[in-house]
């Protein structure tokens, strides 16, 4: 496993991170995390509001050892979209952030979170409310190594001012073959300001993974609604076009997609949901081959869609 700096935090994160959710078989998911850690994966991401994921991770970490946990904070206001009309002091009040961090530390039985990130970030929140002061204090107390923002899918321009301000340590964002939008401005800016980047959804919610069947997803899986018919069909057509580009050493579109995400030097870690041992093995094997070659990256540029 290779490791990269998480911005200025001093934390070295594995190039692959486990995006922790409970999944259909929590027992196997715990085993997968344990095996991943054994293979050098030291970074886990989760949504703090996902109680089952927190519980699962607590069990997986019970044996001790290094673990860098990246947590997306829970907003007190429910919103489906970036919501600049909701003020920061309502969505992420400082006292709430402190309480949530302390609750996570206690539940996970760890001394420090690697990162806390405010999700669905709106530029209007910069300088609004007391979230920044609260997180700076938590960082000063050593309860978190850093803090940052997590961008709503495809909303990569939302973090430009915040990154340039130097106030945050890291950004979390979607980055994949369909949405390489962050590479235009945000990722170079992050590199220039030594801001870490957690890339999520490199497999576009599973659509770029082998054997994906959007119509066959379980009824309780939110992706079943996300990939409504028109979306699923267009995605399938685009994945089929990518399949024609797969060549050794890659064995699948998923391999191509993971090595694509890994290839940008500004990205600290690539977070992938892995509930099965086979997924873990495949992902590790792909990333061990290293970043995608320059000419193949250029070839994928024409496959952008969600930017």
């Amino acid at each position, binding site marked *: 496993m290779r490791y990269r700096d998480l911005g200025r935090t001093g934390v070295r994160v594995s190039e692959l991170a486990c995006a922790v959710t409970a999944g259909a078989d929590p027992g196997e998911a715990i085993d997968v995390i344990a095996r991943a850690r054994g293979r050098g994966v030291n970074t886990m991401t989760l949504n703090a509001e996902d109680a089952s994921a927190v519980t699962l991770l607590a069990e997986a970490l019970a044996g001790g050892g290094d673990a860098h946990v990246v947590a997306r904070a829970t907003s007190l206001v429910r919103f*489906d*979209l*970036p*919501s600049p*009309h*909701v*003020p920061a002091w*309502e969505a992420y009040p400082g006292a709430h952030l402190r309480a949530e961090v302390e609750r996570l530390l206690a539940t996970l039985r760890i001394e420090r979170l690697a990162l806390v990130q405010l999700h669905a970030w709106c530029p209007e929140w910069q300088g609004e409310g007391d979230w920044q002061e609260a997180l700076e204090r938590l960082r000063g107390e050593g309860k978190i190594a850093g803090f940052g923002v997590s961008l*709503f*899918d*495809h*909303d990569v*321009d*939302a973090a430009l001012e915040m990154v340039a301000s130097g106030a945050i340590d890291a950004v979390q964002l979607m980055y994949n073959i369909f949405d390489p939008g962050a590479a235009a401005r945000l990722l170079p800016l992050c590199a220039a300001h030594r801001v870490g980047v957690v890339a999520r959804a490199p497999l576009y919610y599973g659509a770029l993974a082998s054997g994906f069947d959007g119509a066959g997803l379980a009824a309780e899986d939110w992706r079943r*609604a*996300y990939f*409504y*018919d*028109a*979306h699923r069909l*267009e995605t399938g057509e685009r994945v089929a076009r990518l399949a024609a580009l797969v060549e050794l050493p890659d064995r699948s579109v998923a391999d191509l997609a993971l090595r694509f995400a890994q290839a940008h030097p500004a990205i600290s870690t690539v977070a992938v949901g892995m509930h099965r041992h086979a997924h873990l093995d495949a992902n590790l094997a792909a990333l061990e081959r290293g970043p995608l070659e320059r000419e193949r990256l250029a070839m994928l540029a*024409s496959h*952008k*869609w*969600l*930017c």
Partner: protein
Amino acid sequence: MLARASLDEGARAVRHRLDGAETGAVELERPALDDLPYRDLVRALLTRQGFKLDFNRLDPDAAIALVCDRLLGPSSFRAERAPLARDIADLAAFAAGLVEGRAAISVRTCFAPGDTVWHVDRVQAPAAFRLLWPLGRPAGMRVTPGVNIDVAMFRMFHHREHPLLTRLDTQTLHSPTPVETLWAHRPAQLAAMISGRFPFIRDPDLEVEVTPGAGSIHRVQTPVNSGTYHRASWANRHAPGLQIVVTAS
């Protein structure tokens, strides 16, 4: 056809009609552009580069003066500024009366392609309405009842599309690059904006167009109220008009 309303009825009566409207919208009678004393000012503004101005703390007189000074010259259309500002102030006062609240005013002459996608406006307030009066554009806003929307699909559609549409609007405002070029890599999504056909619409013919040149008032989504589903027409792309927008909450 949308229920019709006029300023003369008073805010309370129009609010009652809005509350009873299936779409949450009414059409507002307004004079034709040709009959307005500031028609030449409006037409002159429409020849300039598209802009958007939020009035914020500026009163309408100061805001219109700012727009005219910057875009048309310091001594331009002196006599026409005041009646335009007065009409805007009257509309704002009327809209505020719908909720017994405050009105936020903006004017714009730019085309926002994101508006061609069915959407609801949102604010964080107990109740809110948006009054829109577009001057000098060929097509009216479309509205459709909430029952015509597959809400789950609508939500997921916008989960994917909302940030992309917002960025497209910004790019269009700041760059002369055609929308077709900016979204050449998204042909299906571009085609939907042009045709107005979206997957979450149950009956694509169940939409009502506000009469071109008329005003309209529609419900804005708040934490406790649903909003009116509406979209702009691609037909306004090259002639977006001067749009007076008042959001009362």
